[in-house]
């Protein structure tokens, strides 16, 4: 693993799933930033750069689709994966 670690933004409100997913991704040597709702995810993306976003659709405060649209406005290229 000589490449620099990819940074992943994970936005998921279910505590168990997000915890397991975060652990799993970290085991694959990624750097994971976990946020628990859409608005927090938006703030996190605004303040730092990520290589990949993994979003839940149904979340408190702001849903995944809206968040994805806002991320697209800020960054046209970042890949986005939805959890369904």
């Amino acid at each position, binding site marked *: 693993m000589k490449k620099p670690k990819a940074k992943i933004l994970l936005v998921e*409100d*279910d505590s*168990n*799933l997000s*915890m*397991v*997913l975060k*652990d*799993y991704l970290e*085991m694959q040597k990624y750097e994971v930033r976990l946020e628990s709702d*859409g608005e927090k995810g938006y703030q996190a993306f605004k303040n730092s750069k990520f290589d990949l976003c993994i979003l839940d*659709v*149904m*979340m*408190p*405060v*702001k*849903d*995944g*689709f*809206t968040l994805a649209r806002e991320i697209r406005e800020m960054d046209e290229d970042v890949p986005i994966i939805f*959890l*369904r």
Partner: protein
Amino acid sequence: MTSLSLLGLIFTQLYWIKSAIELSEKQFDHRVNLALSETVEKMVELDKQHRLQKRKFIPESCGSDLVSIINYIDTTLVDSLLKTEFDLFCLDTVYEFGIIQVKNDSVWMLNSGIYTKNIKNTKHKVCLDDLFKTDDYNLEVFFPQKRKFVLFELSVWMFISAGFLLIVISSFIFIVTAILKQKKLSEIKNDFINNMTHEFKTPISTISLASEVLLKNNLPEEKILKYSKVIFDENQRLKVQVERVLQMARLDKGNLKLKISEFDLHELIKDNVENLCLEHCNKPVSLIYQFYATNSVIKADKAHITNIITNLIDNASKYSYDNLRITISTKNVKTGVIITIKDNGIGITKDTLKHIFDKFYRVPTGNIHNVKGFGLGLNYVKMLVLAHSGTISVSSELKKGTAFKIFLPFTPLT
């Protein structure tokens, strides 16, 4: 499109009715004129007979002057002549008539006492020149109830037409509302399926991921424990969700059997509510009991009543602000107990309030899910309260809180 053609149909129908009335009036006028000329002919005939009989008293040369006619033509005679003719022509309605001297507009004979404007302006007049040998006298008839008579003649057709039109309109309205209802229902079902897939998929993905992690070798002991706990929890969650959907299916089928037993409502509330709040509420709750009921022992299905209460408390804690306060009060009425569960939560809008007992209904928020759920809880609560022959009502004020009032009888009717 359909409504437009319906409107067109109504207008056409109205137009037809209007022209039918006009036509009928024309026909009526025609019949009256025929009857009038017949009457005049009869009067002339009578006059001739009279003359033959009384020839010796009234010389031919004298002509038929007013004086001689006055002697034998009176109101009753004219009336009876008119009546026979009108009957013959099926003009069975009230009429007024008079014989008018046109020159000085004076009345010579009248059946209705006063020389009304109506008679003066009537369309139905016939000149009595054959009788009086002068065109100065008119027999004029007026029908005060002509409109009514004409309408009555047409009434059968009008009623039939109106009836069918009404049927068409009402079925149109029925169809439109049914379509709208269906549309809404399918939207709700769609939402429910989306919601359910999400709620089922989350634990499934969690379990699959956690087990995948567990399958890796050389995990530290605490991690193994942590993941096992996660899998256990999520499994439990799945079980509860499946149970809930199954319960709905059972309620839907209608084969609900209550296991009736006797218990104290106050004890049940105290036992369950505190446990529930310790388990589920992730915020501080102040519970206030106001048990005013003196007789709180009822016969009901204990498990279901517990579910009802926990469902309502659960809702109160889900839809609330940080300083949650739940007041549970009871009071007796003649035939049972009223339980009121009141919170200081976010409240419900009036529009929403109508639907909260509907199955699958959740306050629409799109994909924003501040609170998880299927929209089954309150539907279940209502069904079971009804199954216990009780009633449930709700009142709410936005941002102030919601109060559910449940009446349960001492013994449910079977």
